[in-house]
């Protein structure tokens, strides 16, 4: 069976900016696929190309085996798209928006009314159905937008940052909802720059940075590839630099320790990479004790997706976000993305 989504060597530039340099990914039918990357990585551009809103410069895009470039109309029939920015008509009620949406997807007339009732209930919007969407709260708007994307029961649901701006509770509700959809066979492709979100939700992940896929696989595969567990160690709540340096030298001599970094921003705590699944904590604590150093706090964890990103790019996601924030002309982009 053809994969739900196939993207090969996608390329898209806006003038001098290469928004997407080389993106290839394959989303299997019935999985939740996460596209993770910092601001400006090219996530939205990739999705816009997939949804036939933007014409790529080169590359192949297929939805359930249908080329989105040669047969955009056919491809659109398989897709449901919920854009990064909610765009509702504030004069229409929720129900009216869904009625419009139903007609745009040519749902058979007699099924429209019951289907709308069903989806409104599903997203807990019943009470709001006949109020103008201009009066909705941010969370309600997002829900209505989601309802519109789901109304025609697409094979592939594409969500661009579905949980941005939602509180934790709402976010978890969306996660559960997407899992439920998956269990019924819908393929879900989401973008996010929340590591935990992708880690918790996605069956498979592609990490994208500056228009290039730098890693792809299941979250645990990716973490295994990075190798080594992470240990954070605090000798005291605030250690003097000399003491941290001393501990660093001491710990680097231990065979199971691969790397030690002093984190000055965190009161000179130590970040260690140690052999995976090792009994590192005891060994480290013993070594410190013999040198007459106390242990204020110590924890061992498997690497996170952030470590995967760090390993591939040499910077953390947070650093990348901060760097990207300074270098974008949001207004110009908004203009460009209008069609």
């Amino acid at each position, binding site marked *: 069976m053809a994969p739900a989504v196939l993207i090969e060597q996608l390329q898209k530039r806006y003038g001098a900016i290469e928004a997407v340099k080389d993106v290839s990914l394959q989303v299997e039918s019935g999985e939740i696929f996460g596209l993770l990357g910092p601001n400006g990585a090219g996530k939205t551009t990739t999705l816009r190309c997939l949804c036939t809103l933007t014409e790529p410069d080169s590359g192949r895009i297929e939805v359930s085996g249908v080329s989105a470039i040669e047969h955009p109309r056919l491809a659109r029939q398989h897709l449901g798209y919920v854009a990064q920015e909610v765009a509702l008509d504030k004069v229409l009620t929720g129900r009216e928006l869904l009625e419009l949406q139903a*007609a745009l997807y040519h749902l058979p007339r007699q099924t429209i009314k*019951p289907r709308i009732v069903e989806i409104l209930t599903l997203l807990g919007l019943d009470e709001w159905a006949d109020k103008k969407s201009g009066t909705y709260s941010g969370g309600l708007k*997002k829900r209505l937008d989601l309802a519109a994307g789901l109304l025609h029961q697409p094979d592939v649901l594409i969500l661009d940052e579905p949980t941005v701006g939602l509180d934790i509770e709402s976010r978890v509700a969306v996660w559960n909802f997407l899992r439920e959809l998956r269990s019924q066979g819908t393929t879900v492709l989401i973008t996010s720059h929340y590591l935990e979100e992708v880690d918790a939700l996605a069956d498979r992940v592609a990490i994208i940075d500056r228009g290039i896929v730098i890693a792809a696989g299941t979250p645990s595969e990716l973490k295994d590839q990075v190798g080594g567990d992470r240990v954070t160690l605090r000798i005291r709540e605030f250690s003097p630099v000399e003491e941290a340096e001393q501990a660093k030298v001491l710990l680097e001599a231990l065979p199971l320790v691969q790397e030690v970094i002093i984190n000055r921003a965190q009161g000179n705590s130590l970040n260690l990479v140690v052999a995976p699944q090792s009994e590192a904590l005891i060994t480290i604590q013993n070594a410190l004790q013999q040198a007459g150093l106390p242990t204020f706090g110590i924890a061992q964890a498997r690497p996170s997706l952030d470590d995967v990103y760090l390993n591939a790019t040499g910077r953390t996601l947070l650093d990348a976000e901060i760097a990207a924030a300074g270098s974008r002309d949001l207004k110009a982009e908004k203009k460009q993305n209008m069609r």
Partner: protein
Amino acid sequence: MSRTITPPQSEFKDQVGAIALPKSTPLSDFIQETLALTRRLFIQLQRRPSTLAAGIIQPLMWLVLFGALFQNAPQGLFGDSASYGQFLGAGIIVFTAFGGALNAGLPVMFDREFGFLNRLLVAPLASRFSIVMASAIFITTLSLIQTAAIVVMSAFLGSGLPNALGLALVGLIVLMLVLAVTALSLGLAFALPGHIELIAVIFVTNLPLLFASTALVPLSFMPKWLQVVATLNPLSYAIEPIRYVYLHSDWNLGSVVVQAPWGAVTMGTSLLILLGFNVVAFLAIQPLLKRTLA
């Protein structure tokens, strides 16, 4: 999102399979989407009735105030018209329809700017021409309502009424003008970068085209150069036939409606010119629509 979200029920798909549904065709799909898009525009109008009210009150004020301006002008100054008010009626009808159609692109431009248009563009529309079609239906309906209001008002002001066939012709002319101008405005809505630019274009076209037409004064009042401009202005070919049917119940396609510097223009020629205007307008916007609406 609250915790009240329950898992989706999958009844819907089974249900669709169970009922024997009528087959949809590209044409029925096109009609379905066009009607839905048109409905949206009418809902907007209904919830913001002030735009409609203003669109009706404004031409009526023109008619009353402007008509009074030359109240005491000598009889016969405005050709066969008994009064300036009677002369002006046709100009106000056309100017109002023109102004409405010129603004047709604005809602589409706002949809582009807010991202709502993306919602339409990711949907598997039978043809994206339905977006244009919906605007055209909406604007022509609106223009016909405005026209009716002006016709009724000018009858009250003593300008008389064309006969039924004449009224039908007035409707047809308004329709032709509105379609062409709506097309141009929608083309601009896709070509220009944003609503500021579109409003600027509307601003610099609207009044100059009014003054460079025969809406307010007959050709004979104008200097030669303006006569040439006015006879190149498609608005004149909507105004003159309407003016003619107001004054002559015995009109036919051969009736001479205006003396242009280059010769007599008949009713039939005017209609052909309006038709040509439509063809040119629709051809002109093709490439613009293709770029976005391919």
